[in-house]
């Protein structure tokens, strides 16, 4: 660190008057966000127009499909639940200073383990249901913990290992679904070419909640409770305090008694476990007609990760963001009528994330520059 040679007898930053600038700064913030979101949507609209579609139709189809048509907001809630679970898990790693980008694989491992418990083990339904959820969380957690172990034990960057393990998870699930002795459906009536697991028995499924003509699985409540619980744990407890310390300054944390390897592995496992739980919730909540398929995860892991990026390390903020992305997912099902390929939704999602990265970065630079100009030299 450089030596501060500026006189510090007076602390200019302490007395920096803020009130006259407040309004202008807020204006800046609004304009920045407006511009970048506008740009993202503009590009999306241009793409729609390019393929001969109408962005107005696309917009109203998405709103109808996700919200206003009968029964649709229930679907949106059901879609949002796994996104939210993945996102809050990701926030735990982000706060610990780790980069977990293998949620797609962790989710798939969770769904696979849940499928094994739900379709291959016997027992009373509720017990199996809980067992499937726990197994899903455990499998996802272990899958992520492997990456953490490789990082702390062999210095393999977790950015790469979590990603590569997504591909391995896909292969593994594919392998398990390739044989009847493993997970492939044993039902003789199974269509010859269909590669799916057996169906989750009806008493091992998540109970359905009916509300104002909408229905959704009770995984929604699990996700919501998890998000609130983690928001509390991260914000108010000593554990959350230590996680933040680790994320910002691992050496200070080590001195203060936070073991980087142990806490980091725990954070990674927590994140993986929530992704795995998301997979189990999807399976027992009715995705793919209660059957595990090779492409079961269907980008929910990636999108949950994007939700976490949008929520900027806040578990509470992840709730509306998950609803937004869940809405885009369900809404995209209504795009067929507009003649626009539903993949446009993936593009919109990514562009939105990029757009929302920009304003905080710009503001950070400005704020930091002001503070630095007040206190420090350029070296």
């Amino acid at each position, binding site marked *: *660190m450089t030596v501060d040679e500026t006189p510090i007898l007076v602390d200019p930053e302490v007395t920096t008057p803020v009130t006259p600038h407040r309004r202008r700064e807020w204006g800046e913030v609004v304009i920045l966000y407006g511009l970048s979101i506008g740009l993202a949507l503009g590009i999306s609209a241009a*793409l729609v127009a390019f*393929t001969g579609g109408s962005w107005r139709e696309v917009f109203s189809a998405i709103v109808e499909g996700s919200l206003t048509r009968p029964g649709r907001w229930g679907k949106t809630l059901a879609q949002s639940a796994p996104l939210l679970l993945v996102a809050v898990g990701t926030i735990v790693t982000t706060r610990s200073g780790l*980069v977990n*980008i293998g949620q797609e694989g962790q989710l798939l491992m969770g769904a696979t383990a849940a499928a094994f418990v739900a379709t291959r083990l016997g027992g009373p339904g509720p017990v199996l249901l809980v067992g499937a959820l726990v197994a899903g969380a455990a499998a996802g957690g272990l899958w992520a913990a492997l990456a953490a172990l*490789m990082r702390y034990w*062999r*210095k*393999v*960057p977790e*950015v*790469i*290992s979590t*990603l*590569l*393990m*997504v*591909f*391995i998870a*896909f*292969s*593994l699930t*594919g*392998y398990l679904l*390739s044989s009847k002795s493993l997970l492939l459906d044993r039902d003789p009536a199974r269509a010859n070419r269909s590669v799916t697991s057996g169906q989750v028995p009806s008493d091992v499924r998540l109970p359905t909640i009916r509300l104002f003509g909408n229905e959704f699985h009770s995984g929604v409540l699990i996700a919501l409770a998890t998000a609130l619980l983690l928001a509390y744990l991260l914000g108010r407890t000593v554990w959350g305090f230590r996680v933040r310390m680790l994320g910002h300054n691992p050496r200070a944390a080590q001195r203060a008694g936070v073991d980087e390897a142990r806490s980091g592995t725990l954070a990674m496992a927590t994140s993986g476990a929530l992704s795995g739980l998301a997979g189990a919730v999807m399976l027992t909540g009715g995705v793919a007609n209660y059957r595990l398929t090779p492409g079961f995860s269907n980008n929910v892991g*990636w999108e949950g*990760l*994007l939700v976490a*990026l949008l929520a900027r390390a806040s578990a509470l903020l992840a709730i509306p963001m998950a609803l937004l992305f869940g809405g885009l997912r369900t809404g995209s099902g209504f795009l067929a009528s507009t003649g626009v*390929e539903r*993949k*446009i*939704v*993936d*593009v919109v*999602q*990514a*562009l939105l*994330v*990029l757009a929302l*990265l*920009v304003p905080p*970065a*710009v503001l*950070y*630079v400005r704020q*930091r520059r002001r503070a*630095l100009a007040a206190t*420090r*030299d*350029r*070296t």
Partner: protein
Amino acid sequence: MGDFLGAVGDVLTSSTFYASAARLSALLMFAAVGELVAERAGTLNISVEGMFLSGAFASALGYHLTGSVVLGLVVGIAGGLLIAALQANLSHRLPADQFVVGLTLNVLVVGLAAFLDSNIKPVVEAASVLEIPLLSDIPLIGPALFGQTWPVYLIYPLVPAIGWLLYRTRWGLEVRAVGENPQSADVSGIHVNKRRRQSIYVSGLAAGLAGGVFVLGLIGSFDVGMVGGRGFVAIAAVIFGGWTVKGTVAGSLLFGVADSFRFTLPSLGYQVNPNLLAAMPYILTLAVMMFFAYRSRQPRALAQPFIRGLR
């Protein structure tokens, strides 16, 4: 075990294996040597995957529109550079987190390529094979090294060019300094983030070219899943190679060989579960990194942002 060794023996005496291993290695090498430059400047550039795919789609599009392999490759490079521009400016002009940006770009490219592909459906044909007389007649390795389509040969000038750039030019010296100690480089009058952005452009160029070679030199078609993590494997090749040009080339060869194994085995009549074969290169990559990531010395400022006045 005997079966396995027999299979390995059969593969090793098959000349199609060498040819496909060389192709797939070259493919990784394009992306990896570009990534090497970005990493030496301090960026762990995970959007190389997106640049790869963007280059692949752009070159398919370029060929579709012009019918020329050369122009297809040029458009492919432009596709890689487009993603590089986003990555460079978001993470090294603005201080957005490089992994967040890279990851989002990867997702964006997949969505965009899938969307445009299903709308445009570009028609592509692979470039013609260019056999170098005499040399391509050498048994086993002759066709591998000298009997490929011509875009694959671009790797021969590219690797020494990257080596020259990194070790023989002032620009390369500055890039290495910036990746090791940005504060010192800054004090020495080097524009740290500018060098980092430029090095990401080099990576985008090389990865875009990799995509172009994939589509126009290897397969002759485009599919959204075609890159399938090869960009990440290229990153692993850089780590395996201890951030040197020679090592990166060696890493690309290793992973290319592993990649071709899984294509060659079934073609020789061996029945192995395709899912397990597909996982092999990734498992190998992880296993290899467990040995080499620990030993080699990475650029000290790798993945650390530089904002003047901050550490």
